[in-house]
């Protein structure tokens, strides 16, 4: 389903270029859960940016369901992201001016689903992450754990093929993290989405199908 092939990416900083990815390769089947670990600054977020076509690689390719998304021109890349990718971030990144339900419904609206159908689907998704009754709450009135649940609902409401999570528990206390992790895993499995999860959390990594470590610009398998 997902094929990452020999990705290279470097950044210019002042006069120097700084190579971050130097031939990262991996593959994942539909519904598979892949954990990615690595030291800070090793390029994990950069990798996710390339997979979601937010950024373009210097060399190499990212294929999703056989289509080379890294070669797509704008706006096809945006349309790919809109329809096939869901995001969960460390800092939640909810839209502060929209309420809880609206944050979820926004994804459906972007995908052209509107009216009562959108409302129903978002409501159901919000209920599935355990936030029933909080639909019209303002985002900043939710606790950190609740915000992350909402972010998960937003990431999955449009049934994407790919779910990308960048340190989803990095900003949560341990108890909350223990609730969030199974939620992501079960919801992703139910939806049949391929999950790429960046984490420092050994417990989380242990529950993935496979774990890859990003080291010296390459993805290397790590024994569970």
């Amino acid at each position, binding site marked *: 389903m997902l094929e990452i092939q020999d990705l290279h990416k470097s950044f210019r900083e002042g006069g120097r270029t700084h190579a971050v990815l130097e031939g990262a390769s991996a593959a994942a089947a539909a519904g598979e859960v892949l954990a990615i670990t690595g030291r800070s600054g090793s390029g994990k977020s*950069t990798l996710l*940016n390339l997979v979601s076509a*937010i950024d373009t690689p210097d060399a190499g390719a990212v294929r999703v369901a056989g289509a080379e998304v890294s070669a797509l021109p704008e706006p096809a890349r*945006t349309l790919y*992201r809109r329809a096939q990718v869901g995001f969960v971030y460390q800092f939640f990144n909810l839209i502060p*001016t*929209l309420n809880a339900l609206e944050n979820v419904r926004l994804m459906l*609206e*972007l995908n052209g689903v509107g009216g009562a159908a959108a409302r129903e689907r978002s409501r159901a998704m919000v209920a599935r992450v355990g936030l029933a009754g909080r639909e019209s709450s303002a985002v900043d009135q939710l606790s950190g754990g609740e915000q992350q649940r909402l972010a998960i609902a*937003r990431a999955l409401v449009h049934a994407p093929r790919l779910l990308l999570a960048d340190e989803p528990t990095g900003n949560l206390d341990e108890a909350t993290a223990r609730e969030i992790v199974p939620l992501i895993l079960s919801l992703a499995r139910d939806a049949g989405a391929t999950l790429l999860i960046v984490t420092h959390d050994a417990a989380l990594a242990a529950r993935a199908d496979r774990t890859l470590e990003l080291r010296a610009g390459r993805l290397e398998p790590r024994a569970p």
Partner: protein
Amino acid sequence: MRLLEAATLRHLARHRAQLALALLGLTLGVGTIVAVNLATASAQAAFERSLRTVNGAATHQLSAAGGDLPESLYVALATHPPAAGGTPLRVSPVIEGYAQAGNRVLRLIGSDPFSALSGAAEAAAAAGPGAQAAGDWLTKGGTVLMDAASARALGLKVGQSLELRVAGHTVPAELAGFIGEDAPGAEALLVTDIAQAQEWLGMPGRISRIDARLPEGPGGAALEQALRAQLPASVQLVATRARARETFAMTDAFTTNLHAMSLLALLVGMFLIYGAVSFGVLQRRTTLAVLRALGARRGEILGLILKEAALLGVGGALLGVLAGIAIGHALVGLVARTINDLYFQVAVTEVTVPVATLVVAFAAGLATALLAALVPALEVAGAPPNLALSRAVLEARARRIARALVPLSVGLVLAAALAVLASSRSLLAGFLALFLLLIAVAALTPAFLEAVARLAARALGGGSTVLRLGLADVGRSLSRTGVACAALGMALAAMIGVALMVGSFRASLATWLERTLQADLYVSAPGPLEDAGRLFMPGRVRELTTLPGIAAHSEARRLRVDSPQGEIDLNALRLGPRGGATFTLAQGGAPAWAAFEHGAVLISEPLAWRLKRGMGGTLALVTPQGLTEFPVAGVYREYGNERGEILMALRTYREHWHDDAVSGLGIYLAPGHSAEAVAQELRAQAAPDPLYIRSNAQIRALSLSIFDRTFVITRVLYFLAAGVAALGLVSALLAWELSRARELALLRTLGITPAGTALMVLAQSLFMGLAAFVVAVPAGLVTAWVLTAVINRRAFGWHIDLEVQSAGFATALVLALLAALTAALYPAWRAARAPLTAALRTE
């Protein structure tokens, strides 16, 4: 509303203070344009209305150069009209003068009610009790019609008799009716039968002019040809439209300056709008990037921001139009007063709202808002939605842009210099240079601010940590501080420039007055200047100037003469004891005065500029003999008449015009005689005719007070522009400090006291105000030079010696500090008072 729109638009609703400031900036910018246009258009309309009243149905006027016409010319034209293609020629005689009723000076028009073509006479014939009143003209002598407003002011009713003072005599008259108030322009008007007016004005058999109505089209042209062929050489035929346009051109330079000021306000307003919109976008960088990451297309994001800007633009522009109409009502009075002081009487009775102006100002406001939003919108929509992009990366980019703006700024200055050098007369090029210059100031300011902030932080190395942190922050947050400082710098430069220009102009005027007004007393007959009846005849001049206590005198005959270039003011002089020394010659030295005594003329700088003449050229004037060429021996400085004037020896004038009268005398006192005593004797000698006597000090004071009143409106406008810029600083600082609430809270958790935080915010603001002022000082000097040596030179033709006075700088400095202080108050208060937990929680 779609969620995508809701996500961005709700931001505006949440940041009401910021929204209000952005709207206010837009409102002031658009409002100033509307107000200035409205005020000038209203004065213009009032002027045109009064012209229409005077000219009425007449399309042409026949008049003689510097004098009146024999009535026989009218009789000849009426009985044997020129024939061309069977088109009839309508002519009507008019006699014009002034009459005094009570304390009011009224324009006296004598016309023939049967042939009347003049608006005033027509209006009179159609006046309320007019049918009867018109009949009365024929049967009863001494009947007059008066405009209703004057009659009311004098407490006169129809049928009442009154005394008029006309041409030095008191005559009885009777009010036969009113000229309706609805007759536009019928202000201070007295209408009577032509024969009666001739008698009163002492002009039997003479008339002032003949109104003529020629049909439009080829028939009219043929008729005009035939008419011209029949006229004596000294009589001219002028289209009234052309004459009206000619007169109004006088105020062009004045209105041009006003429009420049209003554009300046818009330019500053534009920066404010840019600041407000780009802050709004910057604040939402993360949200917008998240939206992009979630799959919102570039076009959608761009559309969102532009839609928001359009909304803001429409709202602000609408408010601006409304505010402009309100401010315009207030300005009308000022503009009308200036025009009255400088050019001619207008009574602005109604405010004209030119729809085109409203549309243009509205469009300008909307376009400005869109343009201001386009830059940050393109930037946000164009960049990859990389959430990892930190503030530091953003600010580094802002610094790069600021540095790249420095060469651009230099380029703009060079372009401005080129615009000035490549053109010699174009006022537009002058304005272009001015605007390029101000934009260059704005482009230079952010880089300057960053550099001085860095230097200052380093210089404070051993000093206060709080101050050092604060100053370093100013340089590091250039994306926010740069725009605000640029807008303020630009406005301050404009302020300094205008203040220096006005100050220098005033100084030049004062020097000129000092030099020109050498006589101790100036004597003339009272009444409006144009009144041909108010003249001294040679006998009277001899009587007055041979009184004891008078050592010497000068004589002047002032009148307006016709020329192929239109009417020109002529000042025929017999110089006083100091000869030509009272004039400053810009061209031609002592030989010019020798030539002057032998028939040559001198022309004032504005006239030289307008007619593109100079020493060695010639100037043709219409004299009673027809067109006569006069050599131009020199050009002199003159600030009293922006249209320009001609100086001619009185002897030369008398040779050509056969007119011995004098309009004014300059009296030089013998030693030991007081001005009061001599004035007393002069009055006694002239009795019962009144004399108008003023000392040179009085004239100087009057001239300077007129000058000051003229520039009141300029001052109002530049304070408006400065206010807009100060507002920009307030809104920018507010946005910046509020967005740093977390950072400031962090500093407080680290142990900086609330007072320390407040002090830091205050220091940052004052530093920015000072930086803007420092940039504005040299820029203001250059602006002043462009305003005096380029704009005013090209608009009026006069030379102003640039004089650097500290007052202009002081005002700008005070304003800069005041703006900085005002801007800092609320953010400082918030920084000190905000609860730490809340500040740390919200991102």
